[in-house]
């Protein structure tokens, strides 16, 4: 639909392309330059040394093997779990279906580093609570479980990424044309045979996209590899880069960039495959998704055992981590819950954390980044989504691709890229460096809910207001913004919670004075101060929840005001 073009509108697309282009392309370019430079101080003096050293490192082959096993293993665990849950939820008569919604959303609110920490507290070989408990009741010698292994990493990462896989697979499963299955049954196939021969093959695009997305996520993952992998001396690419820049005598950002290049290239390639697959599967799904209700399969005797599994999963995903953290924050050292443990409980860890100046500073910084960062990020997302959905010129398509680019950014790699950039500017080691990095990396999470909000605003709604005599501003105030509020609120919540718990980008960009919560938790964890980790972690979860509730209430109030007042 063409419409009168005003100058402000015409200028919007190029200026957004400049802003978003700076945010997404700049770190990539700096990463490329950095990888060919001799060092942070000697930017621009060209050398191939970094690549040669990085890729001839004798440990590098092991790191690659570990990374491949870790990412593919996590993708497998997450996707199988998600398929299982999505199938039960959309296609069977399993009870208490609201649990599935909770399982798919809540784990996103628990910071990954805390989830990893809680599993370390349960299953570490020296004093993991579950290990100690099993040793006691079975009077065993060694520990039955060791979390510090590749299997341990895969299990935890798989659980963490399951919600993402679920959010891709469940809608595809719900929009599935049930007559395909019915015709299979009419041909005489059993439920199981139908599932294997018809349902899963038809869902292949969704399953593939889920696998690809989880691989990208686990490739970028830093929480699990650092908290679980590093103590067991199992390195993957993200922890390898961390080792190059953050441990040892001299940080080598050139070599980090050289290693990061291959991570980034793999990641971008996978994301474009993912994008292709989802656009294909969306086309396919919308055809048959109109007002139909699938017949539910009666699980009969399997109903309650299966429900038991779901119950255990939700306990493990949501209740257990918080419980373990809270318990650990109250006891002086790791011990199995007992009368002795309860008698030794105190608020000591909390008091220590809240009187620790660096923890307090990190708290302040993270809250600032969460609130200010999410607000700025959402404002940018509103304009970008507007152009993507409503302007739809060739420039708008370019902007969409640009803004989608950062979806594939592995935080730690892009952190190295930004490092190369910020060192050249006065922003280095300020909180603004983190803010810019956060917005650049998480922009797609703000854009997605807003583009769907804009799509719902049919151009006729806007035009109708203008024909009624309303000017552009009045239309914006009475029609566009009220309809956008749900999208703005969910975009803000997503960004704020992600910024509040941001770890991967921050481990590179955070400097003395700009500590943030997750990095502080990581430092405590590296020193084995589990009580402090837990106390700070619980504070983190509380702040995150408070922000979500406040944003939700403001959104609800604004929507109601529009309905009552006018």
């Amino acid at each position, binding site marked *: 639909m*063409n419409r*009168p073009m005003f100058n402000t509108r015409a200028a919007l697309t190029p200026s957004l392309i400049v802003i978003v282009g700076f945010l997404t392309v700049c770190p990539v370019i700096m990463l490329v330059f950095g990888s060919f430079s001799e060092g942070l101080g000697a930017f621009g003096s060209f050398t191939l040394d970094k690549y040669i050293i990085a890729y001839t490192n004798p440990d590098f082959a092991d790191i690659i093997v570990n990374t491949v096993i870790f990412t593919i293993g996590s993708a497998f665990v997450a996707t199988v779990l998600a398929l299982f849950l999505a199938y039960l939820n959309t296609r069977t008569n399993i009870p208490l279906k609201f649990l599935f919604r909770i399982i798919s959303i809540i784990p996103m609110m628990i910071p990954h580093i805390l989830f990893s920490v809680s599993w370390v507290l349960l299953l570490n070989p020296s004093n993991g609570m579950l290990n100690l408990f099993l040793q006691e009741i079975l009077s065993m010698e060694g520990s039955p479980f060791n979390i510090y292994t590749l299997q341990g990493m895969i299990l935890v990462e798989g659980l963490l990424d399951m919600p993402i896989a679920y959010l891709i697979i469940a809608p595809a499963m719900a929009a599935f044309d049930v007559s395909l299955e019915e015709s299979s049954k009419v041909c005489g196939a059993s439920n199981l045979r139908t599932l294997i021969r018809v349902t899963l093959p038809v869902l292949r695009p969704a399953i593939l996209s889920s696998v690809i997305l989880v691989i990208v996520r686990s490739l970028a993952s830093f929480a699990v590899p650092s908290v679980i992998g590093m103590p067991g001396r199992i390195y993957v690419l993200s922890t390898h880069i961390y080792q190059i820049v953050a441990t040892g005598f001299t940080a080598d950002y050139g070599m980090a960039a050289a290693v990061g290049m291959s991570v980034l290239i793999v990641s971008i390639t996978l994301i474009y495959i993912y994008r292709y697959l989802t656009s294909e599967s969306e086309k396919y799904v919308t055809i048959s998704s109109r007002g139909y209700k699938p017949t539910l399969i009666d699980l009969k005797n399997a109903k309650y055992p299966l429900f038991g599994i779901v119950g255990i999963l939700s306990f493990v995903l949501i209740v257990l981590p918080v419980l373990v953290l809270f318990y650990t924050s109250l006891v002086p050292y790791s011990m199995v819950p007992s009368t002795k443990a309860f008698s030794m409980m105190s608020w000591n860890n909390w008091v220590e954390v809240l009187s620790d100046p660096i923890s307090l500073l990190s708290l302040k910084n993270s809250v600032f980044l969460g609130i200010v960062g999410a607000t700025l990020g959402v404002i940018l997302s509103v304009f970008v989504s507007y152009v993507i959905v409503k302007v739809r010129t060739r420039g708008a398509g370019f902007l969409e691709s640009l803004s989608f680019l950062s979806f594939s950014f592995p935080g730690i790699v892009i952190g190295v890229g930004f490092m190369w950039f910020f060192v050249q500017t006065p922003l280095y080691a300020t909180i603004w460096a983190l803010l810019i990095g956060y917005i650049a990396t998480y922009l797609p999470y703000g854009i997605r809910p807003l583009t769907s909000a804009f799509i719902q605003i049919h151009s*006729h*709604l806007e*035009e109708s207001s203008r*024909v009624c005599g309303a000017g552009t501003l009045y239309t914006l105030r009475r029609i566009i913004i009220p309809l956008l509020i749900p999208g703005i609120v969910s975009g803000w919540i997503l960004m704020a919670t992600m910024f509040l718990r941001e770890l991967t980008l921050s481990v590179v960009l955070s400097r003395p004075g700009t500590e943030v919560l997750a990095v502080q938790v990581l430092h405590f964890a590296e020193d084995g101060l589990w009580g402090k980790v837990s106390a700070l972690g619980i504070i983190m979860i509380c702040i995150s929840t408070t922000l979500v509730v406040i944003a939700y209430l403001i959104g609800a109030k604004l929507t109601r005001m529009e*309905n009552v007042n006018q």
Partner: protein
Amino acid sequence: MEICIKNLSRYYFSGGKTIKALANVDLIIPANQIFTLLGPSGCGKTTLLRCIVGLETPDSGEIRIGEKIVWSKEKNIFMPPEKRELSMVFQTYAIWPHMNVFDNIAYPLQIRKESRKDIARKVKKTLQLVQLDGFENRPATKLSGGQQQRVALARALVAEPKVILFDEPLSNLDAKLREETRKELRSFLIKLKITAIYVTHDQIEALSLSDTIAVMKDGRIIEIGAPKKIYFGSDHRFVADFIGRANLIDGKVKAVEDSYTIVDSGIGTIACLKNPDALPANAVTICIRPEFIKVIKRDTRDGRNIFRGRAESMVFVGEAYEAEISIADTRLITRIEPTISIKEGDEIALSFDPDHCFVLSK
């Protein structure tokens, strides 16, 4: 209010080609009439409507509404849609989902800053008019399609505009509701003395609703006239074919009599209503509607406009048979009374009413 359009053009650029959505349209829409723009999709009718209301900017020409010039390329005038004091009913209804029925309808009055009391009174009156009294506090999204359509109409009427524009407002309703709403709409518009510009691709809607119809094709207005003139006396092959079902027969003018034009065609000599533009030896097309072809069974008379043919197919459609008759190599469609006993394959005779055979000159 009269609307006057002069030499209006609108181009689109797509794939390196220029598409003329409107090509030098000249049009005068008389005041207090229901004026319909009719044409197949892509003919430019919606573009013309959107240019009048101001949602699209033409590339050249002038639009005058009443005394005001709202768009002129030469005089460099562009009045934005909110200043044009028009109302419009959209194809999608454009009901704002975050407002209730009252707020949706009150919106144009709220913009004019009328008092709360006046707004409440006018909204109530309008709701009564569209038979939605008591629906004020319903959320707009909880209404049925027909009710949403009435809300959209109420919103267009509440500000008492002089001109309302309709962009295929009935196309999303089911057939029965569409018919009822069409009748109601006509009675509202006549009662309220409003100039209405109505866009549709449905010829029955156009014929039953309008005072005047303008038929459009490829960005041009081909013919303007009252519904009966368009249906019975069109000059254009395209219009005759687009409106209703028509048998089109090619021929050559043989002679011109006092009240008839005589045309030689593939099925014989046909006497048609006189068309002064058709001169002897001109190549012409004859249009005859199925309902004016009469079947005369077992008639042996040879007279004017009587032809012999064969019933090729008969389809029973309820009130009649729709029959396909072949005369020589020409196939004609006609309607046959359901009580007449004719079978497929029967030889029959047909008679054309010469007063309803038209010579199309263009």
